[in-house]
């Protein structure tokens, strides 16, 4: 029981660290309770809703049931049920319109907006967005590599192994391309060919012979490496032809499959 409560507290702290919106929420509960103009029914509603939510969230019995249903790794999504923007916005409006004088209201609005801004982090200054180079919003290298493989294969089967940075993008662009592994490998055993291949692919400089064998063991006919990872001469001797380059990546084709 104690562990579940502590887990719930940890999740709470994780969700709200970096900002002060949880404190603003509590403050706004106090504001709407104190302001006479706020309808009593809404005072009761917001207070009761918050109270019941907190009981469900922190009480070990209910927390355990909810965790069993949704999973402990996403228990933090319970906070989507808390009407944080709604309550803060609601309290803010009543604070701003306390006075009937427009200059006072304007000043109050600016103060409220300022408090809201400093209590969080501006998403446009937090590095969330970058410039898009295409409508798919994928890296241009991913698109170029996929297009090169499609042009080369002439409609045939494509199975490629790529560095981790491209693993999450390839099949978003072209779901006809197969890969030996995706984003997660924890379901595979340590000695599986996919895991052994991945271990090579994350090396700063790959062992060409080992990679060549593992790529073939995984039935891949294409290989992409970072420029600094690859020993082109060795790979060529092992039956890999350089097909093209895109950004810092080199695309190889296993020509031994064609020759067989």
């Amino acid at each position, binding site marked *: 029981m104690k562990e579940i409560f502590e887990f719930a507290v940890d999740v709470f702290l994780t969700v709200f660290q*970096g900002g002060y919106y949880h404190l603003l929420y509590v403050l706004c509960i106090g504001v709407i309770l104190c302001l006479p103009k706020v309808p009593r029914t809404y005072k009761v509603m917001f207070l009761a809703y918050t109270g019941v939510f907190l009981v469900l969230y922190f009480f070990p019995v209910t927390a355990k049931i909810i965790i069993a249903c949704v999973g402990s790794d996403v228990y933090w999504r319970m906070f*989507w049920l808390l009407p944080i*923007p709604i309550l803060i*916005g609601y309290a803010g*409006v009543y604070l701003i319109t306390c006075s009937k004088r427009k200059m006072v209201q304007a000043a109050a609005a600016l103060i409220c907006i300022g408090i809201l801004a400093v*209590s969080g982090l501006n*998403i*446009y200054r937090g590095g969330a967005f970058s410039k898009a180079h295409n409508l798919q*919003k994928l890296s241009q290298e991913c698109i170029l590599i996929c297009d090169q493989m499609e042009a080369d294969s002439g409609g045939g089967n494509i199975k490629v192994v790529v560095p981790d940075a491209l693993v999450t993008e390839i099949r978003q662009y072209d*779901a006809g391309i197969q890969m030996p592994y995706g984003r997660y490998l924890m379901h595979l055993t340590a000695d599986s060919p996919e895991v052994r291949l991945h271990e090579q692919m994350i090396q700063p400089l790959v062992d060409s012979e080992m990679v060549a064998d593992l790529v073939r063991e995984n039935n891949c006919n294409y290989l992409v490496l970072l420029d600094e990872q690859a020993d082109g001469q060795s790979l060529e001797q092992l039956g890999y032809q350089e097909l093209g380059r895109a950004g810092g990546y080199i695309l190889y084709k296993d020509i031994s499959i064609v020759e067989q």
Partner: protein
Amino acid sequence: MLVKAVLTGIWLFVIPIIIGNGMVCFTKQSERKAGHAFIYGYVTMFSLFQILAIPSIYLHLRFQMLVNLYTSAVIVLMAGSLIVYRKQWLGVLKYKYHMPKNINYIWILVLLLILAQTAVSALGMHVDEDDSFFVATAATSWTDNSMFEIDAYTGAAYEQFPSRYVLSPFPIWIAFLSRVTGFHPAVMAHTILPVLMIPLAYLVYYLIGKQLFRGDSKKTGLFMLLISVITISSYYSVYTSGTFLLIRSWQGKSVLAAILLPFIFYLCLRLLHEKAETREWMALLLTMISSLLVSSMGIMLPVIMVGIFIIIYGLLGRDWKKLTYGIGVCIPNLLFAAVYLFIR
């Protein structure tokens, strides 16, 4: 490109309004306006997709079959709305728009902020690794004409359906939009859907504001302004609904967090905090079913939210009608919860 854009406009904006206008018969006469019609249209379409998709997936039907089924059902709903409300639609065609006499500067600021947020999300790029499943699933259905038969991560055949996701086939809905508009799923998800989802989220907040402030336009405008600032400032945590809305609006869990859960909150305010006619519970039922489509979290979180309201107003308030109806609208979610726990 022009044809694709026109088809997108029709599927994302025109059709939901037409269908929603038919569904607003479940609201009070005074509130049957375009805003209600739009959101009602979406919860209707999402519910319909969920009802058709789940059996289609488990029967291993081809994706194109679901596209045909859903399109046919949508056409029937549209026809119903156009025929039943033909006088109203004829009135819309004859409507002459007048500029409002007193333009409220607060609303201009709000609209500019919403436009700016939408533009940045649509034109900017945010890389999210969850898309290696969600967008790749849409791309896989679109390419392979199958549904949850192929592993989105690798392209290999699934040994069994992915239990965490198969009951919430929102990526298949994205694949459907790609099929009927011609846009690639990655384009549909990353560039086009933000143009829908962000304004839709603010529409829900607008309805909440109107409800809380009893239709006071100035207070509602101020409320919307503060909501905008809160959303923009929500990046202090990657877990907030505001962050999800602005950087991953095409993902089902974002639709749940930023649109459907607030809409359920709004409906609970109307139905449970106040008194409503029985038929208005239909909107809540449709929204609960919609939540099933968008995310596996949509199975339990809406139930908990409605549950909190029915504890307060049904149980503690000793209103047995609210208690009964509140439990009733949760039945689809509880059934899905049982199935989810069984297959997990």
